[in-house]
């Protein structure tokens, strides 16, 4: 295991997943691939946390899920952003901006 291992900050996983799903319905594996490639392999989603997170978001109604066929004709479970998921995303993005801005300020100041 020589790839850089960056466990996601607690709470950011939901943000990333929701953001990823704005591109359209996607299965779990697709979500990990997407996050990994967009972050240039820097962020890596642990499978062990992804599925519990996806199911929790489903229970909370932020995403809905249904079975579909993947590009190479595999059966896969596709997650789709719901309207309450969009609201949640907006909320979390705002939080994230506030967080990064505050962290940056601290770093500049110190």
């Amino acid at each position, binding site marked *: 295991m020589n790839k850089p291992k960056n466990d996601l900050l607690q709470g950011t996983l939901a943000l990333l997943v929701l953001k990823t799903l704005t591109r359209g319905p996607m299965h779990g594996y697709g979500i990990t691939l997407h996050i990994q490639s967009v972050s240039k392999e820097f962020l890596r989603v642990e499978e062990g946390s992804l599925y519990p997170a996806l199911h929790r978001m489903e*229970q909370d109604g932020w995403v809905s899920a249904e079975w579909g066929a993947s590009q190479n004709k595999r059966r896969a479970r596709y997650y789709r952003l719901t309207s309450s998921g969009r609201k949640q995303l907006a909320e979390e993005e705002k939080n994230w901006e506030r967080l990064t801005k505050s962290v940056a300020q601290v770093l500049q100041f110190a």
Partner: protein
Amino acid sequence: MSLIARLRSMLRRERLDRELGDELRSHIEMRAADNLAAGMTSEEAGYDAQKRFGNTTLLKEDTRTIDIISWVDECVRDFRYALRMLQRSPGFTTVAVLTLALGIGANTAIFSVVNSVLIRPLPYHDPDNLVMVWESSSQHPNPHNTVSPPNFLDWQTRNTVFSSMAFIFDERENLTGNREPEEVVVQAVSANFFSLLGVNPILGPGFAPENGQPGHDNVVILGYGLWKERFAGDLAIVGKSILLNGHPQTVVGVTPQNFNWFIKDGSLTGAKPQVWSPFVFPQAFHDHKQMGRFMTVAARLRPGVTASQAQSEMSAIAAQLEQEYPDSDGHWGVNVVSLRDQISGDLRPALLVLFGAVAFVLMIACANVSSLLLARAASREREMAIRTAIGASRWRIARQLLMESLLLALIGGGIGVALAVWGTNALLAASPRNLLDLHAISMDLPVLGFAIAATLVAGLLFGFLPSYISSHSRISETLKEGGRGSSANRRAFARNAFVVAQLGLALVLLAGSGLLIRSFVRLIGVDPGFNANHLLTFKITLPQSKYGKDLSCIAFFQQLLARIRVIPGVRSASMESFPPLTGLGAATGVHILSQPQQSLGDLPVANVGVVGQDYFSTMNIPLRAGRLFNAQELAQEKHVTVISQAFADKYLRAVNPLGQKAVIYMKSDAEAESQPSEIIGVVGDVHQIGLDTAPEPTVYWPHPELVMSGMTILVRTSTDPLALVSTIRNELQQMDPELPTAAVATMDQLLADSLSRSRFTMLLLGIFSVVALVLASVGIYGLIAYSVAQRTQELGIRIALGAQRRDVLRLVLAQGTRLTLLGVAIGVLAALALSRLLATLLFAVSATDPLTFAGVAALLAIVALGACFIPARRATCVDPIVALRYE
């Protein structure tokens, strides 16, 4: 998160599981395919994809936790697992379940009695405000003495603490008419009796206030039982007339089925009432000088008044009355007793002792099961260690073990409740007449709730320690040492402690029942003062209307006795007004003329017995001095009396009682004073109330001296007394077809009845302590047997090295002896501390009777060591070769 959604998910769990599996598999396959495309070998590709997931099972569980309320789900799984574990060891399960069933069943059965007697509200309106008001005298031991009518009237007008007061007195009356004559117990009551209790008849209007006025009192309320039996539950009974002692009475009501008013103290008949009729005080009842004490008084406290406030005001009123009427009220005070205490009074100590005893039995049972679980946990240590190693948390393991305990408890509790239902019926069947109200005791909701609570508490109690120790074991050691790991010591200590505790608890119970047995032996060793064998008793009450004249009354009884005496199988026959063991006697003041005159209240007090011909010889009461009544004295008034030894000892100690003259205040004062009785003889004492009550001073009169219309006939037979009842009834029918025989019993039965409460308590406590003894023995047996099994190897080596049977035996028994002695010592201390709770139940035995304590300690030690001896002997038979190959 939506609870409903998750609950729904739980129901669809299997599908969800399958879907989750599919989802994860598709993820892995996609990853593997990509890996393959990136140039890995297919083996590497699959492995990498799988590895990234780590522990798929854990992941699945974590994910499922999101979908389902996991703990409910896990509990269900634990439950299934526990069920499988119990099925797999049927021997253990059977022993544990039966032990628990015994403990929970006994607790539930006794609680059902406790509930009905001590807890369940009495079936009256606002029962907490109901009290009984008694008189009590500094000169009499009885704190619940009946009340005189003039005092009742004065209390009623002077008190401010009661919203109402009612009086009650009972008598037997002949019910004639539609069927064969029957003697029934009638309570004469004030017209407000039922409204005071807040009880409404199920039929009819009940008593109206004007029924308390002269001329309007010819009405009755029928008890439910009599209405059902004698009147076949006639729904149109109200308004009909019944004949009581020949007088027509109009039925104005029927009591509810659960109306079981019966206050034994102060009852002249000692029997449950069947009919109630309003009673109007005649003018004489207002006269303090003339009236004796014979009424029971019930009262309802005014709202906001406590029983102790009522007590102090009533005491003040009694003090006024004492001043105003020193002759009749000297030394007399008032005793206010709450109705609940009145009813449960004598039963409470016995019930609480029994309840404590069954709680002990349950604790011993719990200790046994806990000890079994500990032994089993040792053999399952590896299983637990492996479960911990692959990721089960402590809590998870503890919970699983607790689930097994609870399951055991639930099965045991279920069987226990069934046992309790059966046991309660057995209890009622074995319980003496009149002791427990049969209808009142049932498996109702509070009892069931108690059983469930007892079950859960028991499950947690015996399950806690084993599951705690198992879930806190150190895995590595356990796995290394092959199952005999770190927890072994803690378990051994816990099991030893359990055995000591069990033995201690068992000793307390054994001491308690030992004391009761000794007390009972003392009690039945008491000489009643007469011979109770082959003695038939029954009561005849002649109606005033027909036998009003004294002469016809005397003649009737003489003729009846003469007819009975010639019946084959009858050796002798006589009669007494209040023979021993048939209820309270009548007591009065006696003035011995050679002693200074005192106020009525200060006079010596004696029971008065009115007797027929041959009474003392029929009863086998010995003559101590002087002579008995002769034929003339038994035919007409000759003013003579025979006194009991206790009377002579108490009041005539210094003088020869024979020839002394005494005024016995049982007739009107003038009549009594003009006809003092000469003492002609002294006879042996009899126990009037019971064997546990000291004989009271008694004076006897021949029947003509005080003609009573109600007499108890006593027939000494040479065969079974009850076999003669129908012949005697025939004779009676020939003389007067309307006369019933009441309270037919043999004196042996009466004697047994008077002992029944002591016998009942002793029997139950005895059973519980035997159960405790057996359980504790099983406990110590199990422990020693287990430790022998554990030490087989060691014992084998010892034997191989030359240890003798004796050495091995001593080695094993030493452990048992230490535990036994410790348990017995702790038990003796605890029993010494607790046995004083038994004091009120004991007769002529001290609560710390050394003989009893030594006896039960020895018994327990012998049984416990005997239980140790079985595995110890097995240990001596260990074959060293086999033992060394062990493992």
